[in-house]
């Protein structure tokens, strides 16, 4: 297997863009990525596009060639990958595999979602489709409800508090406020977060990620070729994708994401590293409790201690392990299909030292964790500085 590098990154801003369609967002991200990589579009040999629900959100299917041809790719395999909120994490995994296996030398992985043209109740219904529609979905479970039930159980078993969850939101908003590409660049207080409109108890609107439009893309090449394209590449030290039950009620203990644990363990093993080696991380904070659970399941902190870890500012930009310096899904935004590759872009920016006032002090090893549904898919990627 060949070592692989990320030689180009490109992202649109995340937000609500009524004047932009799905294709123009995706093309903008891909164009930025190939320009950043100094790769002519005719050199690209395969294109993997992560997208969760284009057919439901904008009524368009067959998205990969629809975007790929507009981005200037001709006669190459263009494939859409759908794994709920981990769609583009999965696109990144498959792109990495194809380069590592020696099938292709230059591959683009991207993700896109255009969500804001639908009403919130309709978006809620479409997102519920990432769960088990015959069971929990039919009973009326929304995605906030599934994570609210995880939160309730985590509070019950470990004494996690609403204040600790609010601390995740406050931190991520503080980070996102400094990110020019973030959707909601607004600093919030613990009091505001706690008093937010209830969405699904105990979660308020400030515990939930945003409904956003946006796209992200990266260019992957074999490590041995990386410097020829871009001296500011990032090494892909590991990518692992795992799966678990789609329905929450099939799990024994919903305070654990087995897919996060297994993807993390596989990725650490592949990279020859452990949780203590990670210097900056982007975790999938679709809800504040999800960042808390992921920080535990990735071994950053003991099981049940994710709440205090966040509340004590351990994961702040100036803390021992900065998490979601981009603002996370909470403040940066969560255009579902774009999130996984967006995290790779954010980690690469940190490894390059390009994160401006959000730059962390130590930035040689970064980790990205992308979760699909209530944990049925997880992709963990570990990147290293050039």
């Amino acid at each position, binding site marked *: 297997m060949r070592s692989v590098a990320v030689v180009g990154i490109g992202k649109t801003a995340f937000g609500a863009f009524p004047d932009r369609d799905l294709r123009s967002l995706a093309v903008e991200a891909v164009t930025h990525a190939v320009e950043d990589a100094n790769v002519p579009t005719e050199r690209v040999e395969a294109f993997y596009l992560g997208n969760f629900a284009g057919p439901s959100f904008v009524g368009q299917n067959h998205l990969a060639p629809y975007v790929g041809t507009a981005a200037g790719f001709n006669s190459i395999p263009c494939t859409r990958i759908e794994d709920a909120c981990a769609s583009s994490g999965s696109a990144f995994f498959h792109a990495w595999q194809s380069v590592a296996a020696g099938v292709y030398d230059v591959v683009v992985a991207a993700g896109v979602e255009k969500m804001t043209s639908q*009403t*919130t*109740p*309709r978006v*809620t*219904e479409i997102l*519920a489709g990432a769960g088990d529609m*015959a*069971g*929990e979905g*039919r*009973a*009326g*479970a*929304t995605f*906030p*409800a599934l994570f*609210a*039930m*995880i939160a*309730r*159980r985590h509070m*019950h078993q470990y004494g996690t508090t609403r204040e600790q969850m609010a601390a995740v939101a406050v931190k991520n908003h503080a980070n996102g406020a400094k990110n020019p590409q973030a959707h909601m660049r607004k600093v919030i207080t613990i009091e505001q977060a706690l008093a937010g*409109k*209830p*969405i*699904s*108890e*105990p*979660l308020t609107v400030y515990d939930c990620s945003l409904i956003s439009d946006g796209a992200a893309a990266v260019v992957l090449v074999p490590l041995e070729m990386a410097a020829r394209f871009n001296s500011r590449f990032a090494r892909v030290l590991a990518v692992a994708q795992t799966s678990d039950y789609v*329905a*929450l*009620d*099939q799990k024994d203990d*919903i305070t654990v994401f087995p897919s996060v644990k297994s993807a993390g363990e596989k990725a650490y093993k592949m990279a020859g590293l452990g949780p203590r080696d990670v210097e900056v991380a982007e975790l999938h904070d679709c809800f504040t409790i999800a960042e808390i659970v992921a920080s535990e399941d990735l071994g950053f902190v003991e099981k049940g201690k994710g709440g205090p870890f966040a509340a004590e500012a351990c994961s702040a930009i100036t803390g021992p392990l900065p998490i979601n310096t981009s603002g996370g899904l909470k403040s940066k935004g969560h255009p579902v299909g774009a999130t996984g590759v967006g995290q790779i872009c954010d980690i690469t920016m940190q490894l390059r030292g390009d994160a401006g006032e959000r730059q962390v002090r130590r930035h040689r090893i970064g980790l990205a964790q992308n979760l699909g549904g209530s944990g049925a898919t997880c992709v963990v990627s570990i990147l290293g500085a050039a």
Partner: protein
Amino acid sequence: MPDSIESSASQGGTVYTETVIFSPPEQYAADAPYQIAIIDIEGGGRHTVRVLGKQESDRARIGDRVTFVEERDGVRYYRKAAT
């Protein structure tokens, strides 16, 4: 549906976790706010169900017992058991 599942569905259960939903999907907009719970069914199995009632006293919490009311359109409705 096999008889064994049918009969277990109509048994009582214990709340494993729960939430009250204020922001419903389009399909259930008229029901909001409504409570759902994952319950451990007596005799085995875990299911996601609706818990009926709009009053604070109807609210089922982790560890509370719930009794089966009915199954409608594939959804099982339960009510917090009297204590």
